[in-house]
């Protein structure tokens, strides 16, 4: 087993200030640890990895890690990443986004990246809230939960991110939680190795902006909630629909074998004769 703390020294930027900026108990740090372990497993060098992030608490990951890092505009990380990947297919691109970043303002880029099956790894840190701007509801805030712009409780049906991207044709879809940190790094390393567009949704506690307002207890309590409600997909499928309650599946949810965008584009280049140069 790869230990986070040791591995971390290899990947953290030494000139940044630690402890990092995230609140005590925030799950983003755990997710970043899992990401680093996953990358360590894949064996890619730091130079081969590009970490693209959006804007938000989770978007700050790009400041801390010693890769080629790009902190884009809010919601647009996938479009920047698309440009990088197509311009230099040798780079491995990991795109870190918050739930708001990826599914609110950035929803369109998400669904089109799935459709194009562009060879990127998207890591969506889903804390069910806009953390950075102070706790407004996001497209994944559960109905009736409170937020700074939903003091009477949210009335919007949340997205099931994994279902959404599946319908758009993503070729690898997986979910884990900060409690299931080992599973998270395993899924992430598979996602990075996967050719085509792959998505890992990491459920991550935001004790400060989401938990506190919704009486979800401490960071620990929130993780224990994940422990109780995250069910490995095979087992989840066996739960009778009426008994699902708040439970949700984790693990690999979709794994298709389809040519990715670049493979298809190379066919075009061949047709046009551009491969002969």
């Amino acid at each position, binding site marked *: 087993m790869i230990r986070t703390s040791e591995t971390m020294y290899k990947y953290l930027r030494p000139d940044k200030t630690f402890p990092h900026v995230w609140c005590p108990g925030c799950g983003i740090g755990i997710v970043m640890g899992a990401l680093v372990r996953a990358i360590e497993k894949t064996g890619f060098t730091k130079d081969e990895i590009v970490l*693209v992030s959006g804007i938000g608490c989770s978007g700050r990951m790009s400041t801390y890690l010693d890769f080629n890092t790009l*902190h884009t505009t809010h919601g647009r990380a996938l479009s920047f990443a698309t440009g990088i990947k197509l311009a230099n297919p040798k780079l491995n691109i990991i795109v870190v986004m918050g739930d708001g970043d990826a599914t609110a303002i950035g929803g369109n*880029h998400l669904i089109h990246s799935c459709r194009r099956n562009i060879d990127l790894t998207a890591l969506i840190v889903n804390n069910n809230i806009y953390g950075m701007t102070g706790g407004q509801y996001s497209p994944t805030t559960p109905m009736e939960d409170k937020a700074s712009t939903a003091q009477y409780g949210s009335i919007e049906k949340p997205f099931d991110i994994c279902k959404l991207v599946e319908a758009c044709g993503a070729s690898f879809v997986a979910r884990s939680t900060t409690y299931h940190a080992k599973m998270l790094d395993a899924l992430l390393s598979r996602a990075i190795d996967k050719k085509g567009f792959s998505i890992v949704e990491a459920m991550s506690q935001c004790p400060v902006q989401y938990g506190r307002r919704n009486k979800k207890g401490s960071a620990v309590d929130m993780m224990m909630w994940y422990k109780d409600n995250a069910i490995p997909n095979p087992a989840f499928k066996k739960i009778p629909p009426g008994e699902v309650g708040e439970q949700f599946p984790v693990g690999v949810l979709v794994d298709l074998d389809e040519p990715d965008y670049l493979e298809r584009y190379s066919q075009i*280049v061949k047709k046009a004769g551009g491969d002969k140069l």
Partner: protein
Amino acid sequence: MKGHKELLLHGNEACAMGALAAGMKFFAGYPITPSTEIAEFLSVELPKIGGTFIQMEDEISSMGAIIGASLAGVKSMTATSGPGFSLMQENLGFASMAEIPCVIVNVMRGGPSTGMPTRPSQGDVMQSRWGTHGAHPIIVLSPQSVLECYTLTIHAFNLAEKYRSPVILLMDGIVGHMWENIQLPEKIEVIDRPEPSVPPDWYNPYDNLPGGEIVPLVPFGEGYRYHVTGMVHDKSGFPTLVHEEVEQCLDKLIYKIKNNLHDIIRIEEYMLEDADICIVAYGSVARSAREAVNIARNEGLKVGLLRPITLWPFPRFHLENISKRVKLFVVPEMNYGQIYGEVLKSCPKKAVRVTRVDGELITPAQIMEKIEEAAL
């Protein structure tokens, strides 16, 4: 006798060919009249040279993608028109702030809003300077002919690489949609991204070098790992709020342009030496203006033309110099007077405008009218 490589080209086509000549290998865009031919042409040509063409889901992502491609070391561009250009503004500001070379073509159609999609205009001149939020620098070029659609596109890429800045090629719909016979230049200058002169550990992508020298942008993946952000950053690229670093970051954006005005600004003067009246015109309108100069000279009126080829930074000093000699500036534009506002900044008492917004080119006669009025 015509020389070699005499071609009949469409303005948009010439622009796309110019981009290829400049070494552009990545195009991302979203169709919009009257710029679509650029995308269509490149969708056929780029695969032939192993380059990338991608049609994105909108203009926001197109702008994002070309920034990404440029960071990966590939010369990139997009093309659009007013509505799409408005959507690109946020990411265009990112490119300015993060100093990412790229070229944005805006073939101007009648606005505002959906406006007149099939009619040309020059309505986005001020937007090209001020469209994104926050103080930022930008370089904007305006071709007057199909030939210049070709040559200025190359120039745009050169300036983008040289000054690590987005460069906008602002074509009016007439130039973009015009066919004209042109002779491609035999030799063109192409500036490629310079190699870094320091090893990775010494590399600060946003350093303020002495003498205003610009740090080369090393492509991602070449061992120079660094951070790129749209936030105000220090010389290494990381966010900062430290007073001096903030000022250095923002000032540099402005001064890298300001300190190189002589290199960036291109103008054309026509019959200005002895002129009493100076027409200031750009894009297709400059052609009407040149014809007006000829007519006026025939009538014995001392009229000349100043054509800013670089619209932004605006050639204010040229204008001020000329203003010492002439009695009047006449500024014809296919808008309500945008460059006219810039002329005012130098000589508010001496400038008149000729405006037209109905989607037709200003005629030489319209310009002559103003000149004759003034000559009375």
